[in-house]
């Protein structure tokens, strides 16, 4: 309540504030909120699928949405090499002091070596910088921010059509413009090589082109080595900055060197690339957020300057990265027996997926499907672009409790020998 009779002016003639209790204002403001105009944000198209899946009570439900590997029992798979690394780390009784802004040095070094190969001239001449990032997303974000601040050419990022759904909002929020080059050919469910070359040859010089290093997400369609060579040549002619996104090294073919072939070829071919890496899938470290961002520079001096600027970009976002996952990854990569075990396990994961692809196609044929499902086998990595239309996808979800993204992408990792038959039946039902 306003106190009656209180003078409005204090001794100096300055306006005096009343002794009005807070509750007065609170009452005035009670009905209104700062956030009255905030709209409900739409659920994330990819992660939103899992949330819808969780609510479904159908015992036969299948989550083919998010790209997280599952074993043949449909369970999350913690790699043995990860468990062993965790035990080694636990025994060391390490402290919890802040990491440097750029992250755990042993991790960043091993991360770069994994991508480029330990004998790579770039590493030997120290002309690259690798910082530890918050998995692949964090890496792309730092990369986008770096380019937004320092890239002298057009701030246009060319993505393959289609690309991972989160690429666009990440680059856009960093202030970049998004453009596209042809990539997926719906009529063949394969690579539109001619269309890609055609579009890339017209990209204005010094623009940025984003390439999926292997196991293209969402299509699973990768260029063959000869095709990569031609792409590298055209990209060079156009003087484009290459941004590689490598989230599935090892996961695509089962062989880490084979999966990094394109990245290494481009570097050998003279491109000073930027590269995002994720260890979410190939080490199963999803929730630990392990990734790296690399800039290949002209020389060691430039690399140092770039590193200093990456730190300036990182500090106001999260100060320094989380240690746990990076320690696990570094321990695996730097301990020979664990590294061998890891390579075996990655190979195992890739093989199970290849097997599921084969079984799915066999199942569809057995059901008498008249469609050509060869692309399911030709595509590589975790995802399969089925070619299903949105209405068919909706039916799969509503009638069969098979959850996938609207674009017809399924995560093969969610398929098991126990449910591949059901999936073949369901797909046949909506496509016959």
């Amino acid at each position, binding site marked *: 309540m306003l106190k009656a009779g209180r003078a409005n002016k204090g001794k100096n003639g300055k306006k005096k504030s009343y002794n009005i209790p807070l509750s007065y204002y609170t009452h005035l*403001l*009670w009905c209104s909120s700062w956030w009255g105009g905030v709209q409900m944000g739409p659920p994330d198209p990819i992660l939103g699928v899992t949330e819808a899946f969780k609510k479904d009570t159908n015992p036969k439900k299948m989550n083919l949405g998010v790209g*997280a590997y599952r074993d043949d029992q449909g369970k999350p798979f913690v790699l043995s090499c990860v468990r062993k690394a965790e035990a080694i780390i*636990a025994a060391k009784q390490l402290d919890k002091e802040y990491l440097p802004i750029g992250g755990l040095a042993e991790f960043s070094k091993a991360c770069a070596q994994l991508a480029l190969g330990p004998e790579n001239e770039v590493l030997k001449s120290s002309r690259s910088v690798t910082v530890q990032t918050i998995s692949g*997303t964090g890496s792309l974000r730092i990369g986008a921010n770096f380019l937004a601040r320092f890239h002298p050419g057009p701030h246009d990022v060319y993505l393959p059509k289609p690309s991972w759904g989160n690429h666009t909002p990440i680059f856009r929020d960093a202030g970049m413009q998004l453009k596209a080059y042809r990539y997926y050919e719906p009529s063949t469910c394969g690579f539109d090589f001619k269309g890609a070359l055609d579009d890339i040859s017209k990209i204005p010089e010094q623009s940025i082109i984003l390439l999926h290093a292997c196991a293209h997400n969402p299509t699973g369609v990768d260029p063959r080595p000869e095709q990569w060579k031609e792409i590298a040549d055209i990209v060079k002619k156009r003087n484009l*900055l290459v941004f590689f996104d490598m989230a599935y090294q090892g996961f695509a073919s089962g062989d880490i060197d084979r999966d990094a072939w394109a990245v290494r070829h481009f570097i050998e071919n003279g491109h000073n690339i930027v590269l995002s890496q994720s260890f979410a899938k190939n080490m199963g470290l999803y929730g*630990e957020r392990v990734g790296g961002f690399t800039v290949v520079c002209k020389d060691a001096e430039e690399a140092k300057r770039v590193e200093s600027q990456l730190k300036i970009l990182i*500090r106001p976002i999260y100060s320094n990265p989380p*240690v746990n996952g990076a320690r696990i990854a570094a321990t695996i990569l730097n301990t020979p027996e664990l590294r061998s075990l890891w390579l075996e396990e990655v190979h195992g994961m890739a093989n199970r997926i290849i097997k599921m692809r084969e079984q799915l196609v066999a199942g569809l044929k057995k059901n008498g499907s008249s469609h050509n499902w060869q692309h399911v086998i030709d595509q590589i990595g975790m995802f399969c672009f089925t070619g299903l239309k949105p209405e068919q996808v909706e039916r799969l979800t509503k009638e069969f409790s098979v959850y996938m993204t609207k674009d017809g992408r399924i995560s093969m990792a969610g398929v098991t020998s126990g449910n591949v038959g059901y999936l073949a039946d369901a797909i046949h039902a909506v496509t016959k």
Partner: protein
Amino acid sequence: QGSTPRAISIVPQAAPVAVFKLTQDFNNDQFPNKVNLGVGAYRTDEGQPWVLPVVKKVEKIIVHDDRLNHEYLPILGLPEFRSSASKIVLGDNSPAILENRVGAVQCLGGTGALKIGAEFLRRFYNGSNNTKTPIYVSAPTWENHNAVFSSAGFEDVRPYRYWDAEKRGLDLAGFLGDLESCPEHSVFVLHACAHNPTGTDPTQEQWKQIAEVMMRRKLFAFFDSAYQGFASGSLEKDAWAVRYFVSSGFEMFCAQSFSKNFGLYNERVGNLTVVARDADNLKRVLSQMEKVVRITWSNPPSQGARIVTITLTSPELFSEWQENVKTMANRVLLMRSQLKAKLQALGTPGTWDHITDQIGMFSFTGLNPKQVEYLVKEKHIYLMASGRINMCGLTTKNIDYVAESIHEAVTKVQ
């Protein structure tokens, strides 16, 4: 060589972040009696990092729990972490919690929580484009506050008067003056307790005055709570200001860090607590924060959040944690009282009451840049150019050396 457009070659060398450079210089120093009073991390009386006993216990639990895996957390983080962390700062029985109008986002440390809050405010506070909305940070403040808000797109980050260098205390009149004269709807970043770098907090009465002006002038309260429990040893006491604002009816944010009070610095455990008018507003706010998170880090790291959650949700572990926190707070209090006593015994010119009046990890000694330089270069005692010292860097073994060195600096260098 290479097709990289030439101008990555014009990327200039950035200046290193001061506090990390200080630690680097300290590490490179060969002087046997060197002392690091720089970076804000707790140290034991042996000058060593301290992994809290309760944390070691909980980590063992986690490693042996076969049910746990490394799957993605939800975008907003581990649900039990978010709710238990919010309860820590607001109190279990906070009316706002009981009214279902409190939510949270698990973030990467306190920095990450500030970041998500800042990004949200830039997009949604008071209209859709807040690049020109003034953000007020205390003079002085944690050096990263400026960068967090400016990198989130705020073009007008300004100081509000806070530290009175002459009287070595709070400039309340200046603070209230800036609250009265700033543009309406300005955002104020408030230190919940243990102000960094000055260690000087408003009293409860002073907080009440601050709140009154802020409510009347429609200013937004964004609390930064990085030291709850660490300051006084009591979680409740250190959260008093935040809880007062909540009970006064503010819609507000509180960025919480568990780096210091759990000693989990490198696991990046933070929580952005959101107090809204009602559940519906809260829901919409969180949904938009989710979008911001998705394009920044997608979803947060699980290890640290698990450690905190297991601790907070088990009565015995929670008690043990409170004891560990008291251990840290008490050692700091002891160092404060001993440093003051020694300076007084030495007859060091000036008054040194502020050392025990101030609270938390830091003390703003009042040493000027020349005196600081003397300490660093001549005495191998590393502290920030502002005169800020981390009390945790003091031990019973080095406190005499530090006190004598401060005495020298003050008497020899003007």
